[in-house]
């Protein structure tokens, strides 16, 4: 059984939790062999939403999902840049019925301690 744990934060608390704390916990989960994939995301300003209608990909600035749309799945993909990520996202089948939010994953900033 796989579970996806989604982290929700409001803007004020976006940076409240220090990155090294997150990294430590992730490492514990890796050691226990229970973490399949986990990433931190850039703020919502960096999001692009893709909808496919009549075979045409429509792009929107920001997270555009309507509030009645609920998270139904996720793909963690490797892409060269946003255009390639959008091409991949445009092919995700439920994009024809709902919307796919494309968010860049960011590196945790761990400072000098680990370098």
């Amino acid at each position, binding site marked *: 059984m796989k579970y996806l744990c989604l982290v929700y934060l409001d803007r004020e608390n976006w940076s409240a939790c220090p990155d090294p704390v997150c990294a430590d916990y992730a490492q514990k989960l890796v050691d226990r062999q229970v973490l399949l994939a986990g990433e931190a995301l*850039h703020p919502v300003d960096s999001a692009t939403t893709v909808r496919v209608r009549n075979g045409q990909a429509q792009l929107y*600035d920001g997270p555009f999902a309507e509030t009645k749309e609920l998270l139904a799945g996720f793909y963690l993909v490797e892409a060269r840049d*946003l255009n390639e990520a959008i091409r991949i996202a445009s092919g995700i089948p439920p994009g024809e019925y709902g919307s796919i939010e494309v968010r860049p994953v960011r590196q945790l900033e761990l400072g000098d301690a680990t370098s």
Partner: protein
Amino acid sequence: MTPGDRVQEVYRRENRRVFATLVRLLGDFDLAEDALQSAFLAASERWPQQGVPRNPVAWLVSAGRFRAIDSLRRQRRMTPWSEAAEAAAGIADEASVYEELEDVEDDRLRLIFTCCHPSLSEEAAIAMTLREICGLSTEAIARGFLIAPTTLAQRIVRAKSKIRDARIPYEVPDRDALPARLGRVLRVIYLVFNEGHSAAQGADLMRPDLTAEAIRLARLLADLIPDPEVRGLLALLLLQDSRRRARTTASGDLVPLEAQDRTLWDRAAIAEGVSLVRQALGVHGFGSYALQAAIAAVHAEAPSSEATDWAEIVGLYDALLHREPSPVIALNRAVAVAMRDGPEAGLALIEPLLTPELLGGYHLAHAAKAELLRRAGHCDAAKSAYEASLGLARQDPEKRFLRARLAEISD
């Protein structure tokens, strides 16, 4: 011309070109802006002594890149963090700038498509276009759009972060993606033009001339991409702008098309616009901009409002409406039908457009209805339609125009 003057002149003419290439070489807008300023500083020191180089753009790109690498290396000495060092190594490893200068024209396109990327909001794309492609200052753009400079500066900072964080690539879209991406660029240029066009002329001399910037952008794009819609947009802007001097009186009052002094129209702009329309309509793939330009061309070539080929204009609106069903186009078509077949025919077409979902809240729809009612001799109905329009209008010159019409009717 002294070498110092030459630096000024090259800055004025070429600084955006140098910037566009530096963005590609350095991979970052802010780094490129700093490098651009250092390069011109170096030019103002060196050129008076060593003479102006044979290829000033190549010299400036090379100097800017060298200074960027140098400052990244200095950062490397100060911080153990290796990102700056990697950036410096990456930049230094690339092939010689001189070889890559063949790409300079493409860099200008890359800059345009990046600033107008559809994952940036329309507002952000407009701000980035005027700041990065046209080189307007943040303060000037803020004045142009009547918003606080801090709001605009923040919009630009966010857009740049998004370009960096989401990794929006610095590239010209491939053939499949080009039509949709080009559509976004054209829309951004058109919005910039409209903002300048609808602004009260001369009300604030410090406001930048956004219509001129939009025309410059459209011209640049037409030089770089041989596409009928790009030509169509340039033609449309030239033809609309050709009426600039006739659109308002000295005191800033609006003059409707039928009452304009056509000798004030800019004949050179019209000739260029008409020729571009012909080219655009002559090839496969033209769209709504070319059709709108064709309508503007029919007006521009008519000796008077009565002598306008209204049947031709209705036909062009039919084609436009078929391509892009929109209530505003339907409204314009209705007005043209009224000119061809009489006011009652136009009124019959306008009435169904005035629902709340369509144009019920649009002041120009009520003004058009009022105008046709007045021509048909229904003064009372015309009066209430003018009043409805006045209640919805927001710009002072339009309000003054509507009040004047109301006063005329009430006499």
